[in-house]
């Protein structure tokens, strides 16, 4: 139990830091970066829940993000619904996408799932450009109504969403769900021999991951008050994976830390903004060679190791 207490204290400390930050540095630009970082953290956590736990990498997570974002945009801009509808609707549409791609591919062994997700996200990106009459093409859909008038309120709402998502995913990951998902990672055949319906759990995990990512996508569209095809981009999917790597795969909270760190880093180090993906790639290579368990999770564990 002492381990758990340390983790809780750490989490609360980080939460307080995040909550206080925009009050200390009073700048719209800064709170904007914070908001985006927090949304990235939601996405990273959702990726980790499925792919981090089961080991079945998803290279097209942006598919769910984009699904959520565009759904929110459509509901608000074309159907004139309040932006609040976007959140559950975005999650639902993302879940539908996850079934379309996940159902045929997760049954199979081999890299089909990873490839199919990558292909699906890219194809969706192309489709938004092709059917520009409906989706606004390259410019996307601008002029969405925000959830809150104040940017600060939006930030706190996103932060609350992150807490909610993290708690939910952590709870599932620590429960027998998590045990089964990690066993799937260990050895799928042995899992079946233990009487577990492996395909069901994989698809269910993917659906949960998609729902959270889709809701995050809707949040993002809301914060930007617009949506563009970039929301399906491969670079987004890959960025998330790198964030999870930095955080520590399979821990859920590690990726949250990794995402916030990596999202804020280039902005804080002035001039690096454009070189962001390069920085990420180099960091990734470094981690792959020298620290495969990530940076955030191992660091925290080392800092809070029991004194011998």
């Amino acid at each position, binding site marked *: 139990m002492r381990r758990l207490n340390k983790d809780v204290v750490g989490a609360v400390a980080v939460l307080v830091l995040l909550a206080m930050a925009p009050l200390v540095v009073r700048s719209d630009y800064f709170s904007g970066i914070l908001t985006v970082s927090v949304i990235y953290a939601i996405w990273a956590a959702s990726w980790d829940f499925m792919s981090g736990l089961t080991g079945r990498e998803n290279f097209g997570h942006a598919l769910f993000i984009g699904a959520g974002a565009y759904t929110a945009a459509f509901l608000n801009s074309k159907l004139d619904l309040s932006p609040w509808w976007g959140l559950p609707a975005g999650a639902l549409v993302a879940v539908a996408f996850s079934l379309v791609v996940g159902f045929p591919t997760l049954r199979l062994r081999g890299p089909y799932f990873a490839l199919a997700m990558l292909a699906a996200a890219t194809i969706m990106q192309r489709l938004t450009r092709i059917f520009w009459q409906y989706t606004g093409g390259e410019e996307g859909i601008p002029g969405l109504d925000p959830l809150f008038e104040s940017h600060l309120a939006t930030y706190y709402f996103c932060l609350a969403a992150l807490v909610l998502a993290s708690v939910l995913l952590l709870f599932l990951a620590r429960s*027998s769900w998590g*045990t*089964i998902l*990690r*066993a799937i*990672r*260990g*050895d799928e*055949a*042995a*899992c*079946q*021999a*233990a*009487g*577990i*319906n*492996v395909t069901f759990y994989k698809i269910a995990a993917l659906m949960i991951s998609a729902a959270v990512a889709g809701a995050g996508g809707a949040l993002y569209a809301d914060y930007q008050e617009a949506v563009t095809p970039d929301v399906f981009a491969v670079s987004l999917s890959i960025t998330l994976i790198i964030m999870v790597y930095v955080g520590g795969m399979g821990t859920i909270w590690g990726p949250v830390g990794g995402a916030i760190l990596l999202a804020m880093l280039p902005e804080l180090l002035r001039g690096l903004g454009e070189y962001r993906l390069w920085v990420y790639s180099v960091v990734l290579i470094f981690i792959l060679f020298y620290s495969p368990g990530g940076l955030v999770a191992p660091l925290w564990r080392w800092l809070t190791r029991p004194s011998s």
Partner: protein
Amino acid sequence: MTALLDVAGVTKRFGGLVAVKDVSFALEAGEITGILGPNGAGKTTLFNLLTGFMATDRGIVRFEGRALADLPPHRIVNLGLARTFQLCRPFRGMSVLENASVGCLAPRVRHEGSVTARAQRILEQVGLADKAATLVDVLPYGDLRRLEIARALATRPKLLLLDEPFAGLGSNEIGPLSALIRKLHAEEGLTILIIEHKLREFMQLVRRVIAMDFGEVIAIGPPQEIVRHPRVVEAYIGRTEAPLGLA
């Protein structure tokens, strides 16, 4: 009385190779039976067919009277038919207790009470209780074997299929494992089917032996008879493996 397991005319080919040919036998509840045969006789393939990991080309398998055709492995397990693998397949990166817990999470036994408590009890049964928190990645092979059995036991099977449980064990580990199997048979009333390809211990464990060679059943009978059976002897002479040496 319906046999617990009824195998009739099961056949499987891989391209031109017939791995299992027209295999038929029946197991009564409470028996310990062995499947004997040299390498390549089709024994593991037969296990894969019985447990749903491979589909039969022909033939019927019935468990408690119910045909198992086309059922996926996890459904078969939840009917009460569990197996271990020839090469131990633990869930790496997880502890011994967690490994056993996975079996306790099968729908068949899911709601029978605290998962941790049941898993702990199973570990006590197989003698791994003191290593509950150890990561399986550092376990010695003999313990991995026991864990394989624990995980299968956790699903509360009626029939347990053990695939070469003694393979890779040192001579001092074979005795205890054999005793464990005997204990499980006696305490749990488990019906057990064991594959081995040569072992003195095995022959003393089982009541009845099904001998296979080249995918076919060549003889069925008590161990003492099988050892002297002309076709069984012939299957072992002319091979580079040592004969049974049990006369």
